C-alpha cells in the first residue's frame, strides 16, 4: 500500500517535472508578451522529432541529439515570434491567440507532411536501468532521475538568470511595464525574442524527456501535454516562475494519483476539477499576484 503510494508519487513527480519545464515556457512568454502561446506544445513535438532523427537515423550520441533539438527549437521559436507574433504586438490579445493557434496548426501539419502520421517509437536518451531504494522494494529508473534533476537544475538556473543577469533583469522590467522599460533604454523587442528563445529551448528539453518516458512520437504528441502544462502554469499563477514549478509538480502528482486510485479514464477530469476548485478559492492561482482593480 505504502510502496504503491511511493511509486505513484515518484511517477507523479517525474511527470510533473516535465509539465513544469513546459509550463516555464508558457509562463515566461505570458509574463512578458501577455500572450498565450498555444504553439508551445508543438515546439515540444518538433524538438522530440529532431532528437529522434539525430540519434536514430544519424546515430549521433544522445547529448548531441538533445543539443541539436535545443538549437533547432530556439531558432524555430525566434522565427515564429518574428514572423507571426511581432506584427501583432499592438493587436488585441485574442488576435494574437488565434495567430498562435494558426502557428500550432501549421507546425502539426508540417510535421505530418515531413514525418508522416505513423507513431514513431522514441528511443530513450537516458540509458535504461534503475536505482533500487529501500532494499530493492522501490526502483527509480534513470529517466525519472534525469527528468527530476533536469527540472531542478533548470529552475535554479532560471531563477538565478532572471534575478542577477542584465538580460534577466530586462525581462522582469518588460513584464512589469513595457513602456517604462523602453524609456530606460531596454530593447523590448530583443528581450521578447530572447524570452521566446529560452522558452523554446526548454520546450526541446521537455520534448526529449517526455518522449523518453512515454515513447510514442506523433505530430500531435505535443498538444495534450501543452494544454496540461498551460493548465499547470495557470494553476501555479501564470507569470510566476516558482508557480510554474509548483503547478507542474502538483498537476503531475494529481494526474498519476487520479489514474491509480480513481479511474484511468477520468484522471484528466480529476486534474481539471482540482484546477477549478483551486481557481475558485484563489482566483489568480497558487502563487499568482493579486491585482487590485483601479477605477
Amino acid at each position, binding site marked *: 500500500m505504502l510502496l504503491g503510494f511511493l511509486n505513484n508519487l515518484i511517477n507523479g513527480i517525474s511527470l510533473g517535472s516535465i509539465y513544469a519545464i513546459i509550463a516555464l515556457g508558457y509562463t515566461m512568454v505570458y509574463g512578458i508578451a501577455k500572450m498565450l502561446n498555444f504553439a508551445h506544445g508543438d515546439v515540444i513535438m518538433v524538438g522530440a522529432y529532431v532528437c529522434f532523427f539525430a540519434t536514430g537515423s544519424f546515430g549521433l550520441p544522445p547529448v548531441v541529439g538533445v543539443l541539436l533539438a535545443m538549437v533547432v527549437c530556439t531558432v524555430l521559436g525566434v522565427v515564429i515570434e518574428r514572423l507571426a507574433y511581432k506584427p501583432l504586438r499592438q*493587436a488585441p490579445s485574442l488576435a494574437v491567440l*488565434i495567430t498562435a493557434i494558426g502557428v500550432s496548426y501549421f507546425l502539426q501539419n508540417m510535421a505530418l507532411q515531413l514525418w508522416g502520421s505513423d507513431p514513431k517509437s522514441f528511443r530513450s536518451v537516458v540509458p535504461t536501468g534503475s536505482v533500487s531504494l529501500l532494499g530493492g522494494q522501490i526502483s527509480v529508473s534513470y529517466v525519472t532521475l534525469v527528468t527530476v534533476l533536469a527540472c531542478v537544475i533548470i529552475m535554479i538556473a532560471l531563477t538565478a538568470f532572471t534575478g542577477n543577469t542584465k538580460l534577466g533583469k530586462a525581462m522582469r522590467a518588460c513584464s512589469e511595464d513595457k513602456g517604462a522599460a523602453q524609456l530606460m533604454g531596454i530593447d523590448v523587442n530583443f528581450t521578447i525574442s530572447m524570452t521566446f528563445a529560452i522558452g523554446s529551448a526548454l520546450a526541446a528539453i521537455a520534448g526529449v524527456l517526455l518522449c523518453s518516458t512515454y515513447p510514442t512520437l506523433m505530430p500531435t504528441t505535443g498538444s495534450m501535454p501543452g494544454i496540461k502544462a498551460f493548465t499547470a502554469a495557470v494553476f501555479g499563477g501564470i507569470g510566476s516562475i516558482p508557480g510554474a514549478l509548483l503547478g507542474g509538480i502538483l498537476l503531475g502528482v494529481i494526474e498519476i494519483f487520479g489514474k491509480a486510485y480513481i479511474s484511468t*479514464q*477520468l484522471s484528466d477530469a480529476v486534474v481539471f476539477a482540482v484546477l*477549478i476548485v483551486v481557481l475558485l478559492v484563489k482566483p489568480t492561482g497558487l502563487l499568482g499576484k493579486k491585482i487590485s482593480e483601479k477605477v
Partner: protein
Amino acid sequence: MKQLSGRKNKRLLDNLITYGIVVIAFLVVQFIQAGGGLSSSLKGQLVPICCYVVMAVSLNLVVGVSGELSLGHAGFMSVGAFSGVVASVALQDLIPLGPARLFVCMLIGAVFAGIAGIIVGVPVLRLRGDYLAIVTLAFGEIIKNIINCLYIGVDGNGLHFSVTSEMALNLAEGGTAVIKGPMGATGYAKLATFTAGFLLVIVSLVVVLNLIHSRAGRAIMALRDNRIAAESVGIGATKYKLMAFVTSAVLAGAAGALYAMNYGSIAAKKFDFNTSILVLVFVVLGGMGNIRGSIIAAAVLTVLPEMLRAVGEYRMLIYAVVLILVMIATNNATIRQFFAEKLHGAQEDGKMSRKGAAK
C-alpha cells in the same frame, strides 16, 4: 427623437440584411441542389455548416458581446448532442414522425446544455480574463472525459446509466445501449435535414439579435466595456453575464443535437478542445460582436478545407497559413486605414461593437 428613430431604422435594416443573407444562401443552395450541381462531399457539409454557424453566433454572444473568452464551447455542443441522441432513441416509438422527433431532441439537447451552462457559469463567471478562459477549457475537457466513460441504454423500463461497462446497464430483452463509453453513440436514426439546420440558424439569430438589442443586451455590453462603471449604476454583473452564457450554451446544445443527428454515430472526442478553438476562430475572424461576420466566417471556413481538397494533403497547411496571414493583415494599421477610408461610415457600427471586446 428623430435621430433615435433613425438609428432604430438603421439597426432594423442591418438585422434584415443579416436575415436576408441567410435566407438567400438557403434558397440558392436549395436551387443548386435541385439542379444536381452540388458535389456529394459538399452536400454532406450542409448540416455541419448550419451547426457551426449556430455555434459561432452563440459563442459570439459570450466572447464578443459579453467579453468573456470561453475555450470550452464544444462541451455544451457535446452535452446537447448526447442528450439529444438518447432522447431520439428513447422516443422512437412515442414520436414516430422524424422531423417532430428531431425538434423534440434538439429541444431536449438545448435544455440539458442550458443546465450544464448554469452549472458551469455560476462558478466560472466569478473569475476574470485568462483565468476564466482556462476554467472553461477545463470544463470542456471534464465534460468530454465524463461522456467518454458513460454508458446509457434504453429498454422497456426506461433509461439505464452506468460508468463502468455496457454489461452493467442490465438491459432487458430488446433494449439497446445508446452511448457506449469511448465508442460514443451509435445505432440511431439520421434525422437531420438542411431545412432543420436553416431553421435553427434563423431561430438562433432571432434569439441573439433580439437579446443584443434589448435592455438586457445593453446591460451585457455595458458590463463588457466597463464592469465597475456598469455595476455602479446598478447593473448586476452575475445575472447578465450568466444570461449571455446560458443562452449561448442552450443554442450550442441545440446545434450539437442537430450535428449528432447528421451522422450515424458520434463520439465524445469529436467535441474536444480543437472544436472549441475552431469555433473561436470563426468568431474572431468574423469580428467580435459582429453576428453577420460570424455567420460568414463559419460558413466560409467550414467549406474552405473542402474546397482545398484540390491541393490534397497540403490543405490544412494552407488553412493554417491563411489563418495567420488574415490575422496579421486585419490587424495591420495600414491595411485597416485603407479599408476604413473605403468604407467610411458603413463601418461605424462594426467599430463600435468591436471596441473593448474580450481581452
